[in-house]
């Protein structure tokens, strides 16, 4: 039996061929090393994300998340739900809070769920993968498995918004969370605690609808990473990762910059540090290739 078991809510962007499929691949490799067992919630659905607000309304949005709770309770009773995506985690947690604090919302939700033949008896705990790593495993346990430290690599820890606000990771500040820097140090790389854009918004969904606004923000995030001498950026959020990575070419055209900095997931750094291959870490999923990590991943492991 695995040391830690959870009901897994991967989210739409993690699916095969989707924008964060590299995140999922690296999380799976990471969890194998850490003996964490994730069992996908059968037939899980989209959380609605924050951007669905024009049509979602209050109850339909919570019902959508509650369906996942009900499926989890039915198929994986007693397990906490773990999400890797910031929006999934936030959406599910928000629903949990609202339903817990309003009997009306709860009974309305139960009534709607009946239509899908589902019910909720207990509210599940909703965890982000980084919470599991920090709180259930701890930095010492995470560090134990490092066999290939990312020595000499300077990495800007970009936490972004939705993993940090409004819930965030317990004990961390909204303005200057430090857990990501600690994870960078844990894999043997050099962190940049003074990186002042670590909680700046990447523009979220506005990167699609009003790119000029989002790209102005992304420019600040990338520029500051360069100013601090970072070789790459790391983030825990799929939308942060995509937004900060894939529009660098357009930003270069718009602002005359020469951005070309890789944007990684914490799980990818960990897999390489744990001795995994480039394939295990899904480094082929980067639009801006992380050459330095690819080189390290090709090196033999010191055991």
């Amino acid at each position, binding site marked *: 039996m695995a040391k830690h078991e959870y009901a897994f809510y991967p989210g*739409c*962007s993690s*699916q*095969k*061929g*989707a*924008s*964060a*499929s*590299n995140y999922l691949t690296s999380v799976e490799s990471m969890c194998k090393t850490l003996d964490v067992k994730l069992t996908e919630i059968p*037939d899980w*659905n*989209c959380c*609605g*994300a*924050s*951007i*669905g*607000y*024009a*049509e*979602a*309304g*209050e*109850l*339909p949005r919570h*019902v*959508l998340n509650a*369906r996942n709770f009900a499926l989890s309770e039915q198929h994986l009773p007693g397990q906490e739900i773990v999400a890797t995506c910031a929006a999934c985690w936030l959406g599910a947690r928000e629903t949990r809070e609202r339903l817990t604090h309003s009997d009306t919302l709860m009974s*309305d*939700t139960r*009534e*709607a*769920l009946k*239509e*899908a033949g589902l019910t909720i008896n207990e509210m599940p705990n909703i965890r982000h993968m980084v919470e599991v790593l920090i709180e259930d495993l701890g930095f010492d346990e995470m560090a134990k498995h490092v066999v290939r430290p990312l020595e000499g690599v300077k990495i800007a820890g970009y936490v972004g*918004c*939705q993993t940090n*606000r*409004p819930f965030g990771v317990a004990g961390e500040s*909204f303005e200057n969370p430090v857990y990501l820097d600690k994870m960078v140090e844990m894999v043997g790389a050099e962190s940049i605690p003074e990186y002042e854009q670590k909680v700046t*918004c990447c*523009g*979220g*969904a*506005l990167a*699609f*609808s*009003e790119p*000029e*606004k989002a790209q*102005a*923000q992304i420019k600040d995030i990338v520029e500051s990473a360069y100013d601090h001498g970072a070789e790459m950026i790391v983030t825990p959020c799929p939308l942060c990762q*995509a937004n900060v990575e*894939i*529009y660098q*070419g357009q930003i270069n055209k718009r602002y005359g910059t020469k951005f070309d900095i890789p944007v990684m997931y914490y799980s990818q750094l960990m897999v390489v540090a744990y001795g995994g291959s480039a394939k295990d870490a899904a480094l*082929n*999923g980067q*639009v801006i290739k992380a050459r330095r990590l690819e080189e390290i991943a090709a090196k033999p492991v010191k055991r």
Partner: protein
Amino acid sequence: MSANTAVAEKYRNNFLKEIEEQVEMGDWVKMCMQCGVCSGSCPTNFQSAWEHPPQELFMMIRAGKREEVLTSSSMWNCTSCYNCIVRCPRKLPITHIMHGIAEYAHRLGMAPKMQATRFFSGLFWKNATKTGRVNELKLSMGLYFKDGFVQGIKNGMAMQAVALGLVKAGRLNVMELLGGHKCKDQKGIQAMLAKAYEIERTRKTAKLAG
């Protein structure tokens, strides 16, 4: 009588009450003390300036400026970064109030028609709930073709390099156009959502009548 005229009649001269009863988290609006921390914390207000930043919208609601608030493009500038929520000294759930006012304006048909984020927001929800899971390719294409076919092709061309990068990295699958990921129990999801809309409508109408 249109939905808009009906509520305007009922809440005549009391727009604050209308917001409190009809908008998600609207009952928080009166708690605003006009400090402006939300506006100073908002990334899009900082970069390009909202027509009316959050604390101004709150005061306009209290001043009964119904038309100006509901037709404003302001709320649609929200990136859902939640900075305003965590910084508000009176703990107003500002992000949710912005989404709530936007949703209400959309529901009444008063929100600016071609505002890009309004369009995308509706598109996202429809895309996600149609099969239970987001189809990223159809979502992007839907946005590019918002202003017609010719503009759609132009937008698509402008995004060519970005899309190609994603395809090469295995993070955008052109086959998604033919179907893509979906939930098994789509019928159950549709029925459940229809019920949720029905309940929500009934509750809002009851407030209107009460």
